[in-house]
């Protein structure tokens, strides 16, 4: 028995099966990300005045990542249009660029995560705070680089204007508390890691599907080109959704 509406749209909905399926899936994704965005907004407006951290993220790096994703959305559409124009080699080229962009995005995001996990806030016994990147850690001491030193409770992390030092050695006996900028550090970083890690998982998942359709899955072009083109459209719709989420995430997390 042949499954109907695999390629041609259903007359009543105007959609073929896979397109209806992906839009239902995207609707559930909107609810997932919508709930997290709502949580962010409520946490943000519920924070004490001046307590919400600013300047913790590297804006130029985030901007580059935004440009990478916008480029990948353009190439994914060009790949689909190439198939519509019966240009399989151009499809391969454009979809290849999309995959490179996806990998680049994940690499840049990993670097940002690494930067946060090596960024430490060290509260010393004399009430001073040293904020910098870990260079060396031993039982007797730690060494930080690009350090800002300020009094505890003076401003919020990221925008303090204390004394700046290139490198600083702190003896273990001087340390009262030491914590990196992981998701446990504060509410902002908790929601930042939750949202961006979930988004990165979507990027990896989307890239895996695109890679399959670019590689072994592309054999379908020879047997059923119309159905293959529809598959590319479906993967493109998901990719656009993932990129659109980032278009909202970037200003909310990095700028505001």
């Amino acid at each position: 028995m042949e499954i109907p509406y695999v390629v041609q749209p259903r007359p009543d909905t105007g959609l073929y099966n896979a397109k209806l399926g992906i839009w239902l899936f995207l609707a559930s994704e909107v609810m997932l990300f919508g709930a997290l965005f709502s949580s962010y907004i409520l946490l943000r407006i519920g924070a004490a005045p001046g307590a919400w951290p600013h300047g913790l993220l590297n804006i130029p790096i985030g901007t580059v990542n935004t440009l990478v994703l916008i480029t990948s959305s353009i190439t994914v559409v060009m790949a689909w249009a190439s198939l519509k124009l019966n240009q399989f080699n151009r499809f391969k080229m454009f979809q290849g660029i999309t995959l490179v962009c996806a990998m680049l995005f994940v690499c840049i995001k990993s670097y940002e995560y690494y930067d946060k996990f090596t960024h430490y806030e060290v509260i010393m016994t004399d009430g001073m705070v040293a904020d910098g990147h870990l260079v060396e850690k031993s039982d007797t001491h730690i060494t930080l680089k690009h350090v800002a030193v300020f009094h505890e409770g003076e401003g919020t992390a990221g925008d303090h204007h204390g004394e700046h030092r290139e490198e600083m050695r702190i003896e273990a006996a001087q340390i009262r508390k030491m914590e990196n900028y992981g998701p446990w550090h504060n509410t902002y970083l908790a929601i930042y890691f939750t949202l961006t890690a979930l988004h990165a998982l979507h990027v990896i998942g989307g890239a895996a599907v695109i890679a399959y359709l670019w590689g072994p899955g592309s054999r379908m072009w020879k047997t059923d080109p119309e159905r293959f083109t529809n598959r590319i459209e479906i993967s493109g719709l998901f990719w656009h959704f993932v990129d659109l989420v980032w278009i909202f995430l970037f200003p909310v997390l990095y700028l505001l």
Partner: protein
Amino acid sequence: MRQRRTLPRRIDPMSLKAFHIVFITASTLLSFGFGAWALREYLSEGASPTNLTMAALSVASGVGLIVYGRYFLKKLKTVGYL
């Protein structure tokens, strides 16, 4: 003789083309918004060349996205899938 008017073809709102137009519109707004933000930072936090560079680049990318959006609409008119 009265010429017959051709109605504009309706864009399928659930097609990749329609979603791409929405995406490019959102990206263009982000570019100009980010440009305004970077310029404000440049003016309020002292003359940091990074902020001015980011403002200029984001406005340029916003203009580039508008040009691309127009090109995209024009180019894909030849693709008979609407």
